[in-house]
């Protein structure tokens, strides 16, 4: 292994987990996410000289993001139809009527929240994952997604509003169950 390989192992390899999680949230599929991370890692190796002052994690996530979107454009173009912020709202999954008793409600809540995030269109889903799971700043998210900071803010607000609504639906269902 040469110097570049060593640099790759030090800088990039620690963030492969974040790369996978991000690609997995965008593709909904372990296998596709693995393929994407492998391609993105090779690109990262090629562009490694370009990584200077920047932090490695957001830098890698930017490469993963571009790799994922090219993949989505080829394989799932229907998901990427451009929407304006005032377009129709995505379908929020409703809780099924026969959820188990209170002890399992928290688990059911977590599952429904994850389904609600999965149901967000990719442009909203990626800002939520980058902000809430990767804890990145607006500036970094804007850089990764290639959008202005103002768009990061409006997408984040919209995504959280939708998730908040779906949580309320879930809680109402849980309350009904508790009262039963």
């Amino acid at each position, binding site marked *: *292994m040469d110097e570049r390989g060593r640099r790759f192992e*030090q800088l990039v390899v620690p963030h492969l987990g974040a790369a996978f999680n991000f690609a997995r949230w965008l593709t909904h599929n372990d296998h596709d996410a693995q393929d994407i991370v492998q391609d993105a*890692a090779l690109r990262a190796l090629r562009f490694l000289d370009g990584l200077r002052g920047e*932090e490695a994690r957001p830098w890698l996530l930017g490469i993963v993001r571009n790799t994922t979107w090219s993949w989505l454009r080829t394989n799932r173009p229907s998901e990427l139809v451009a929407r304006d912020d005032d377009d129709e709202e995505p379908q929020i999954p409703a809780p099924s009527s026969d959820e188990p008793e209170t002890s399992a409600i928290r688990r059911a809540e*977590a599952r429904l929240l994850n389904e609600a995030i999965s149901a967000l269109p990719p442009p909203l889903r990626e800002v939520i994952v980058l902000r809430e799971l990767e804890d990145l*700043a607006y500036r970094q998210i804007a850089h990764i997604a290639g959008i202005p900071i103002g768009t990061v803010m409006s997408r984040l*607000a919209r995504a959280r509003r939708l*998730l908040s609504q779906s949580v309320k639906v879930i809680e109402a269902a849980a309350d009904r169950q508790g009262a039963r």
Partner: protein
Amino acid sequence: MTREDELRLHAYLDGELGATEAVEFERRMAEDSELRSGLAELRAIGERIRTQARYHEAPSQLWAQVTSRVRRETPGRRGRLVWWTSLVAAGALAAVVAWVAPPLLHQSGQWEPRVKEVLDDHLRAQLASHWIDVASSDRHTVKPWLSARLGFSPSVPDLSDQGFELIGARLDVLDAKPVAVLVYQRRQHMISVFVWPGEPVVAPGTAESRGYHVVRWVAGDLSYWAVSDLNENELRDFARLLLSHP
């Protein structure tokens, strides 16, 4: 609520307002119950997402796949022989990863011995209330203390701004080798971070047992294992913070 105020609420919660702007906004919130209830609602959903959204664990073979492909691309200056050696090494690494990584995960029901060791060590420290050999919230005290006693020097970042208080450090022995244990605290939860040098790149992973979580990762030449009864997402946040403070 105006659109601007809605966006400002998010930016305030995300720590993205400048200091003066934040103070100004807090003053307005004190007088505006609609803003306050908006903030409470946002806080609730944010908390929910951070604790309940799934962090998808990468399959353990991913590390081996990536490192072996990278080694093929970067054969080094010594030519074919090294190329073959590294390929064999990558194969061996893949075998090690395949053998070591799956039992780390709790689905398999089995524990890699190391998981049990670090967990036991954490529990012993808890039972004896002996968390630290050197007490200090000052990383400039802890780091030299550790490097004077060990052949390596882990980074000891100050993460108190992020809610992880540095308590100190202790020394321990794992597998007949001395290891550094950094001790941090979040609310009432203690976190032991075991650090030692010289292990190959293995897949990060998490494990869970009896309400304790273990998160491991590799950075530079050092292996890190964090153990705590903190919830998994927060422990992972902690791991990420350590990783980004080299």
